[in-house]
């Protein structure tokens, strides 16, 4: 069925809604990649089978939805209309869940339990993880079937597009976006309105709008969740963008590693075309627009704007030297607006609710919300959407639940591999584009990796530089060769072979990479080193001068030692040691042969905590083994 006018769209929406009973129970299960990995597919099948068995087909609906964010406790299930939220649901829970719905009850054992208060939370919105968020963009993920356009229409989908096409000039849309001060969610935070305006004003009839879905930061999955869960929101934003800048074609550059996102967005395009929301003469407005999905071939650098465009053109994905902005000369030398998934998904919201609503929250320079993927040493791993200006402390402790295992917080790495590490002293920093940049890190696309006291910051820098060395395209010297040398030096430092002057050499290589690299990858690549040096210089010095790793993490700088006072000769570590480096026996205190030890740490892991005999040390000599004659443990006989 093709919709020919905005009124047709509204009528269809009413039709869809009239056929739906808002009080009818609906079981929504996240079938995003994370929950699928936890077995969500089996859960949804079990639920459907159970509904059939109980003969409730006509009474209970089911839905496979996008990711609501609480990946730590997947598979996540929400039951409407009460919004009862069950976590870590298993297929065998199906009969109980379905029976409970029938009886109007709640399966208590599947509810969230607050670890501190032991209180249960019935509704999704009662869970602290969600309670402290401001979910404007990602909130629809769990409300709609990610493969159904009717579901998107039922929650008001494409109404922003109808509003634009039926009564707003491109100039008016542009003004609204500019007024909202929407900044690019993909990395640099460039104002979207200004970017659009540049393309709109650029000469030429052929223009393009592009979606950057080449999300390559380790540990980041904001864009994936949006594209998988709510592809129509991205499409709607893109169509509005096309209308505004005068483009008739849009491209979605999505990484090959996101098969579900590719599947869902392709399906969304087909459905939108069937309804006439894409294609020729959209809603009778005379505006034609089509969208093409292009799958990346797995190169991190293709997230960089000019490399992405080069790859779209079918050439090797390398950035091109440019002094003309892509919004004036981009894809095939035509004006091209490139924004990332989350930026596009914000557009329909701004159109529907207005720039004034959008700017109500945020900091001076950063408005609206931002989705972060909160990962690492954090209790509640997942996607979180927070108002700009929330402090890192609130994100990590109120939403993330703090650090697991009673460990101490050390740093949070934001902005992806070329972002930086922010220390504990800056936990009250408000998140925003400029705030994070001032702290030596960046917003990036929203990765947030939490690190605890066991993390070595030199090793963190080495890890990220290694990643970037691997992902550098190799075209320009400061990035390719500079990173190669930086990686060598950092590796040497973590191996205890650091030398005087290494820090200075690293600083010089960083300066040259920042100043002289061809693209943003190279220019920002030294950030992991520069930010860790800025806040954790003492760790670098400890490695280089004292050959000591303060976090006791670098293998080459740590030793394991068994405290003879505490060893109970239980044989466990001896049996588990793969290098056969532990000598001991029944009633014979165990001793590690330092020559054979490979510092794998298994002995420390397996030593029963009530003994706590294995000690990890760094930067100090290992105490000599106790004399052979003192190694026998004489145990008191148990009293009868």
């Amino acid at each position, binding site marked *: 069925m093709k919709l020919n006018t905005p009124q047709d769209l509204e009528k269809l929406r009413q039709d869809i809604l009239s056929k739906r009973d808002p009080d009818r129970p609906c079981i929504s299960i996240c079938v995003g990649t994370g929950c699928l990995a936890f077995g969500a597919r089996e859960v949804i099948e079990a639920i459907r089978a159970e509904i059939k068995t109980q003969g409730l087909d006509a009474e209970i609906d089911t839905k496979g939805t996008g990711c609501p964010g609480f990946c730590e406790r997947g598979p996540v299930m929400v039951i409407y209309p009460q919004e009862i939220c069950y976590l870590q649901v298993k297929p065998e829970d199906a009969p109980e869940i379905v029976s409970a719905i029938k009886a109007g009850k709640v399966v208590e054992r599947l509810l969230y339990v607050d670890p501190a208060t032991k209180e249960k939370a019935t509704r999704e919105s009662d869970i602290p993880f969600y309670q402290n968020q401001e979910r404007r963009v990602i909130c629809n993920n769990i409300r709609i079937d990610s493969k159904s356009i009717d579901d998107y229409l039922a929650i008001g989908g494409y109404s922003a597009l109808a509003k634009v096409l039926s009564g707003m000039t491109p100039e008016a849309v542009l003004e609204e976006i500019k007024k909202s001060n929407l900044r690019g969610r993909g990395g640099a935070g460039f104002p979207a309105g200004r970017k659009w305006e540049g393309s709109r004003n650029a000469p030429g009839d052929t223009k393009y709008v592009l979606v950057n879905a080449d999300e390559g930061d380790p540990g980041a999955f904001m864009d994936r969740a949006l594209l998988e869960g709510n592809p129509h929101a991205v499409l709607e934003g893109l169509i509005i963008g096309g209308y505004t800048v005068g483009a008739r074609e849009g491209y979605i550059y999505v990484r090959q590693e996101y098969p579900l996102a590719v599947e869902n967005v392709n399906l969304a395009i087909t459905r939108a075309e069937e309804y006439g929301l894409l294609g020729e003469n959209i809603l009778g407005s005379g505006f034609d627009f089509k969208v093409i999905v292009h799958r990346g071939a797995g*190169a991190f*650098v293709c997230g960089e704007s000019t490399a992405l465009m080069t790859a779209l053109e079918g050439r*090797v994905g390398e950035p*091109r*030297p*440019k*002094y003309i902005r892509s919004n004036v000369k981009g894809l095939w030398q035509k004006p091209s607006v490139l924004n990332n998934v989350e930026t596009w998904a914000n557009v329909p919201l701004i159109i529907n609710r207005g720039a004034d609503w959008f700017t109500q929250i945020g900091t001076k320079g950063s408005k609206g919300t931002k989705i972060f993927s909160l990962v690492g040493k954090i209790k509640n791993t997942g996607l979180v959407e927070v108002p700009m200006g929330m402090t890192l402390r609130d994100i990590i402790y109120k939403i993330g639940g703090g650090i697991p295992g009673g460990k101490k917080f050390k740093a949070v790495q934001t902005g992806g591999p070329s972002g930086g590490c922010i220390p504990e002293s800056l936990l009250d920093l408000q998140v925003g584009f400029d705030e994070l940049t001032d702290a030596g890190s960046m917003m990036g696309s929203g990765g947030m990796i939490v690190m605890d006291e066991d993390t070595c910051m030199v090793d963190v820098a080495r890890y990220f530089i290694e990643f970037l*060395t*691997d*992902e*550098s*395209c*190799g*075209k*320009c*010297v*400061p990035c*390719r*060769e*500079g*990173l*190669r*040398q930086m990686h*060598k030096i950092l590796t040497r430092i973590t191996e205890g072979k650091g030398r005087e002057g290494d820090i200075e050499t690293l600083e*010089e*290589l960083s*300066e*040259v990479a920042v*100043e*002289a*690299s*061809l693209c943003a990858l190279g220019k920002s690549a030294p950030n992991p080193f520069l930010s860790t040096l800025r806040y954790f210089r003492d760790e670098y010095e400890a490695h280089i001068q004292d050959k000591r790793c303060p976090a006791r993490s670098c293998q080459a700088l740590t030793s394991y030692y068994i405290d003879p006072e505490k060893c109970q000769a239980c044989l466990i570590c001896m049996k588990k040691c793969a290098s056969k480096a532990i000598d001991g026996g029944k009633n014979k205190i165990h001793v590690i042969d330092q020559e054979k030890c490979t510092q794998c740490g298994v002995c420390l892991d397996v030593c029963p905590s009530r003994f706590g005999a294995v000690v990890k040390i760094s930067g100090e000599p290992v105490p000599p083994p106790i004399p052979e004659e003192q190694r026998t443990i004489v145990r008191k006989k148990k009293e009868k």
Partner: protein
Amino acid sequence: MKKIRMQIDEKEVVAEEGMTVLEAALQAGISIPTLCYHEKLEPFGGCRLCMVEVESGGRTRLVVSCVYLAEEGLVVRTRSEKIDKIRKVILELLLAHAPDSPKLQEYAAEYGADKNRFEKEASFCVHCGLCVRYCAEVKQKHAVGFIDRGIRKEICFIPEIAAKECPGCKECFELCPTSYLQAAYVLVESLASR
């Protein structure tokens, strides 16, 4: 052709529209070090040696002169403490690959680059891409190309094409600043004749 007046190293220079800063400088007899530039080839912007400081609209920034287009009233400085430092480090990074390259040695003397600053690398190739681009853009044969990426990137002759085209051409040989190309060619040749 529209004339553009600009200043390079305090010298008034007239360039034609569409010229790069590097071309304008060379035409005026001002030298700027380059490795990946060739007059017959599209600008590559890879070696970054030709970086200069440009001042326009009250803003000063570093740009690569082989890509940046000449513009009216532009003020260009081809040497400064910062530029020299960048060139020195770039040369040192490349000398780890090709310590004996005459061109690198010549520049190294000029900028005080230490050829032993970094540990020697196995490959002589400095990835200027002259051979690859010359073969593609001028000869249009594509007999040699880049493979892989980042630090694993290297030039590689495509045996099927090279066997046919290279013996009678070899024009790229003299472009190579380090002799790596010849070595790669000899290797392919010997593999092919096995």
